């Protein structure tokens, strides 16, 4: 049976454009992060997407965001790449799988780990001025 669906998107004004940006090196310092894969250049982060559901990353992630997650497998890097997210931060001492590291290197996505839990990590970044990709649910 065939079904057709018009777009349910609200592109124009769901969220205001981010104006704040923080250099990734500052973020690494704040969360006492360890860099696993470095992009080799300067990266500015404009918002944070904290999620362990990859469809939420695809739905709410924004270009230029930092992805904070506890997932340690390669599809996290795919989701970042597809969503124009330049850096992934593994919280709670997450150890990335080999395939995840290889894909991050191939796609030039910065990969960082921190021993801090997700809540604390996000709290530190919020206090420092970074805001969420999605300030409220648009469902």
């Amino acid at each position, binding site marked *: 049976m*065939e*079904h057709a669906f018009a*777009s349910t*998107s609200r592109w124009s004004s769901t969220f205001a454009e981010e104006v704040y940006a923080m250099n990734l090196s500052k973020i690494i310092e704040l969360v006492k992060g360890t860099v696993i894969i470095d992009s080799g250049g300067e990266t500015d982060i404009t918002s944070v997407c904290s999620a*362990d559901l990859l469809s*939420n990353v695809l739905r709410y992630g924004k270009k230029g965001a930092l992805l904070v997650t506890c997932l340690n497998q*390669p599809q996290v890097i795919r989701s970042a790449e*597809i969503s124009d997210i330049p850096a992934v931060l593994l919280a709670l001492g997450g150890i990335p799988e080999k395939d995840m590291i290889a894909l991050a290197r191939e796609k030039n996505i910065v990969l960082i780990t921190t021993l801090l839990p997700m809540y604390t990590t996000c709290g530190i970044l919020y206090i420092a001025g970074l805001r969420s990709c999605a300030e409220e649910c648009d469902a």
Partner: protein
Amino acid sequence: MPESCSMEGSFHLMGGDFTNAGSASSALKAKLINSGVAQSIVRRAAIAAFEAEMNVIIHAVAGTLHYLITAEALTITVTDMGPGIEDVKLAMQEGYSTAPDWVREMGWGAGMGLPNISKHSDLFKLDTVVGEGTTLEIFFHLKERNADS
């Protein structure tokens, strides 16, 4: 892209191949960028393609992802040999999923796949037969949005 030109191609998708999951959408994204499609459309198309690709990886035995780029539109067609969708209305509902627990533990199966495709596309059509498979046609207007960018 010139009015008279079009470009098309396809990728094979293997059900259960989580190692390469997303590689077709990644390759499609690169092709769209190289074709001069506006950045905002590239991102939306890549996300919709990735969700559709993951549906095949998670639920089907195999499938194909076909793309057609013309001056006016991008059409992504994802066809699979899978179980089909018993209740499309339910499947379109956010949070409804038939994915197994081990898939959820990987971060997928949140019941957001089809709603995300709907959100990011201009139009999509779903044709499904239980026990045979599913075809998704996902459309993006290129002309006016390219002009905007």
